[in-house]
């Protein structure tokens, strides 16, 4: 999977969990995910979706607000975990 496909796959997962994202064309990868409605409860479901779809496991020290700060930060960590894996 190349970078673009990976980004598209993450985008497909994100839109399922971002209840305040009205128009998918407006999605900004730098914008805080919480502004799109991601809270601590919905981030757990997003986490499991990401792990299941990307074949990675987030270590406990990555289960923090920084990981889910933005689409970009989440993508970076997925890349990092895939590289380690």
């Amino acid at each position, binding site marked *: 999977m190349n970078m673009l496909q990976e980004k598209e796959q993450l985008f497909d997962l994100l839109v399922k969990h971002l209840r305040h994202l009205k128009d998918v064309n407006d999605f900004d990868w730098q914008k805080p995910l919480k502004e799109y409605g991601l809270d601590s409860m919905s981030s757990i479901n997003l986490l499991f979706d990401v*792990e299941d779809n990307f074949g990675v496991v987030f270590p406990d020290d990555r289960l923090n607000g920084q990981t889910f700060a933005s689409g970009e930060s989440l993508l970076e960590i997925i890349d990092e975990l895939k590289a380690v894996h």
Partner: protein
Amino acid sequence: MTTTTTKEDIKAIADELVPRLKASAFITDQEKRFPEENLALLKASGLMGLLIPCAFGGMGGDAEDMMYVARKFGAACLTTSVIWAMHCQQIAVLVNHTCEEYREDILRKIATESYYVGSVTTEEKKGGHLLTAFSALQTKESAIVLERIAPIITGGPYCDAYLITMKSAGDAPDSDVKLVYAERHEGDFTQLSEWSAMGMRGTSSVRMKISISSDKLRLINPRQDFREIAVESMIPVGHIAWASGWLGAATATYNQMIGIFRNPDKRKAFDLGSDLLLEKLGRIRMDIDVVTVFTESVVTSYVELVSSAEKRGELYLNPFQLKINSLKVMSSEVLFNVVHKIVDVLGLRYGYMTDAELPVERTFRDLRAGSLMYHNDRLLIVNGKLSLLSPVV
């Protein structure tokens, strides 16, 4: 020169031991055998002398350190944790109550030779009732004779020394309890039974016959009332050490369950979106947090009271008595129920099968013993009576 051991040192030593103790937990349970290799590790670590003052070669630790270590051990091997807990209870008694004549010699020897000291308090006639004794010390010519059966001595065949409750003399009241410190070579300690139980299978809690005749029998409290020993040391340290081990075991089981849910392959067997499952998880976590906070609170109170000459008297007052009994009752009941719920959540595959890596069923069986070890009913009756005199303020 006195070597000091810091709280951080103690934690590091305990942490380092955890995987090694864990390695033999499965076989200890399966073969119902005393974990001799774990006892050897504890002896080599110096932790048998955790509560002994540094001046006598121990680590100078307190109940807070003991709680930490017992939790760690409980997470690795609950049998080892309870064996060590019982030992710590004896050491606390010896540190706090041994008469000056014997105190330094006994404590220095236990610390330097890493003795394992067993508890001999049960008798057939009284069961586990702590504040009485029926077997009496006798005098024959110049010797004092100690003869008695002990229905249960945890780790009895493996102890290097014993702390034995005895009535002071045949015509003395049952409440005139003396504690005798005796090393194994000083008498005959004969094993009369095997230990085959549902859980805590490695503790070798066997029936023994004890015979000692000596003109040098060491009574650690020739003048002190045994009740003071029970209230200031034996009961609180015993309850704290047990509860801490149980908490460690239940917490480890909880973490193992979370590990399954965090594993993408294993969690496929569960519906983590289910409100029913999430409600159960919420309750399990709440119960562990409640026991953790209560245990830490009682330990803080105990350390504060026992280490202060002005405040020590509060150990005898109803508020502390109620709390220390509640700690034992509550932790044994709640933590068993925690693991019971975890079995329910994990189901047959992960919660019920005998599994060295995921010992949920072993912990379930081990924790079932908690309410029976100095039976909760007895403590609740005491607390019921104390409650009548103690409105909540």
